[in-house]
């Protein structure tokens, strides 16, 4: 069943359909929300709950022919924006340096440490970004959305999305290149 068909079933109060949609999106949304909330797990879970409550309450208003994926991500991004307005989350930054979750080519302990530092630096840089830039970046590189989908979610043109991503990537590459453990130039 497609997401849109499941939404139709939710309108008919089908709990199983709701569970299925939750299973499809909760994981990716939680990761996005956690990144958006500076790795605050509790806040991210609260927001995830709110996202699905909104889905439930607005099921009747979901327009036919619209993409559910863009719709639910729009809800999530808007909730994050509201949360940013309400709280100054930047003061509560928790940069988790988790060595175990780092992927990659199996490398030495020194390289692992470098990788952890890289990850840490990336987190700091992401946390510095304003909400609209961070969500644009995460939607593209964490959630794997297309430029068109991001433009729809962020309510701006595709050109704006591209230029935001372009300057953001350039800046990140410039700042992070010295942390790259595989970068011959940097080491």
């Amino acid at each position: 069943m497609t997401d849109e068909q499941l939404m139709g079933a939710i309108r008919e109060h089908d709990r199983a359909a709701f569970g299925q949609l939750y299973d499809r999106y909760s994981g990716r949304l939680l990761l996005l929300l956690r990144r958006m909330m500076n790795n605050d797990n509790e806040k991210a879970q609260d927001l995830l709950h709110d996202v699905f409550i909104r889905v439930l309450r607005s099921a009747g208003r979901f327009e036919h022919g619209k993409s559910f994926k863009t719709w639910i991500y729009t809800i999530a991004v808007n909730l994050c924006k509201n949360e940013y307005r309400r709280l100054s989350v930047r003061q509560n930054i928790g940069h988790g340096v988790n060595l175990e979750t780092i992927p990659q080519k199996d490398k030495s302990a020194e390289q692992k440490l470098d990788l952890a530092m890289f990850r840490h630096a990336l987190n700091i840089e992401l946390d510095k970004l304003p909400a609209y830039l961070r969500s644009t970046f995460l939607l593209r590189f964490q959630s794997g959305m297309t430029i068109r989908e991001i433009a729809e979610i962020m309510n701006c043109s595709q050109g704006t999305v591209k230029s935001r991503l372009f300057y953001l990537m350039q800046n990140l590459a410039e700042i992070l290149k010295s942390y790259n453990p595989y970068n011959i130039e940097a080491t």
Partner: protein
Amino acid sequence: MKMKIQSCTDIQRTIVLGKIDYLNQADLKQLRAHLEHCPKCAGYSETLELVESILQQEWEPEKNELRSVRKQLYSAFEKNLQSGRNHRFFYWVLERLTWRVPVYQVAVGMILMFIVTFTAVKHSDSQEGISLERKIIAGMANLDTIQLEQLDNIGRSSLEDSTLISITVTSM
């Protein structure tokens, strides 16, 4: 769009563009050729790839967290369902009412009630007016019961101003 690649700056620009959008075959070919012999640009490209891989490897959902949220959502779902049922019952009752009492009958009934009420209120107002007028005249002229009866016999409707004035004046 075909781009003429020359310097490392151009290459790095192309690397970023490639992360955002698709590159054409010619640009890709030039890019690969350049990366093979330029460690600086290769490092630049690797940095961006590392950023991407760090973000993407976090895709594994954390099941305990998701389970607890799911539990809360299911109870919210039940509540929503219950309120939906209540609404449905309300509309069901409304539909039956509409079926048994057609709208035009209700409208005619309301118009009739309005007319009856309006007439009754007007009648009671005029009755009160007469009795008040009688009391004033009686008070002013110190009329006794016989004279008041005389007034009643004449009747309020046929009572002319002159008669009223003459009775009042003679009594005074």
